[in-house]
């Protein structure tokens, strides 16, 4: 497990480095993700330690953004004053964002899409 954590942290660090030096527009962890993905594709399998650590972290992803999301207390007055535009944007946008890809996939996949 520690070995897996070392490898993931290594790719995170590598991603930060590439982000700082080469493509500042893309967040370091995303570049780390892409590099790890490339490593897995070349290796054609997931090292067991990496699998254990990654599965644990991804399973509890929700916990990790609690500290940042609590910052909503700072925006509370602003959000309350703009409740209507915020709620409308959230609800309508999520409905459209589910509908558009689903419709496109149904049209593009043809017969295959009917298999349930």
């Amino acid at each position: 497990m520690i070995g897996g954590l070392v490898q993931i942290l290594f790719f995170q660090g590598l991603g930060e480095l590439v982000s700082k030096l080469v493509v500042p527009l893309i967040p370091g962890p995303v570049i780390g993700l892409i590099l790890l993905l490339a490593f897995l594709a070349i290796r054609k399998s997931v090292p067991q330690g990496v699998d254990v650590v990654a599965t644990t972290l991804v399973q509890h992803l929700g916990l990790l953004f609690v500290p940042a999301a609590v910052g909503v207390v700072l925006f509370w007055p602003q959000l309350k004053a703009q409740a209507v535009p915020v709620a409308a944007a959230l609800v309508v946008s999520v409905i459209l964002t589910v509908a558009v890809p689903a419709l496109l996939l149904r049209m593009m996949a043809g017969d295959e899409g009917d298999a349930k």
Partner: protein
Amino acid sequence: MPSNPSEIQVIWVYLSGSPLLALFLTLAAYHVGVVAYEKSGRNPVVNPVAIAVALVAVAITLIDMPYAKYFDGAQFVHFLLGTATVSLAVPIYRGLAGLGSRIIPLLVAQLAGGATSIISAVSIAALLGATPEVVGGFYAKSVTAPIGMGIAERLNVSPTLTAVFAVCTGILGAILGRFVLDFVRSKAWWQRGFALGIAAHGIGTSRAFSVNKEAGTYASLGMGLNGVIGAVLIPLAVGYFR
């Protein structure tokens, strides 16, 4: 206050100064959220993240702890977001393996879905009179929160608002998703899952997994692709338009 206020105060000052209190609050609140979620039969309305955020927000208000101080202590948890983002490579790798001829339709659907998400949310919020700061929070709201917050930092918009809108979007998507999918007569599990992953990222994905395994796998793929492609395209698109 009990008999010896000064001693208690000393302990309190010590405890609230160390990261222990913030860490404990965060983990305990999340644990309460998870237990409530399980007890409700995994009802998407009972979202563990929303419960945890509400509990922590109330707790720090009650004990008069400034947000900055709480965040200082909870940084250990926050730091792991980056590590978790890198870890998303594993489910994406598994999803991509054995995709075959579906890759092109999926990519097209992802690009269309990602564009729909940002254009609809930003234009509706702006038209109805939201301030630019709040509108900025909508740019990356359909992108999974760890990546979305990174994008927000790069765009100089609030990562906090992005995270809050992302959580709301995830919950709404998990609740409304099946009705929307039935309405557009989407039948195949892989298509339903993928659409939900694009729109409602991690929360939608866990919802998809609880309904059907194939839907869940494709939802995590949709979430991952939306994150990676969003991280590249959203800053470019926003930079181009503003």
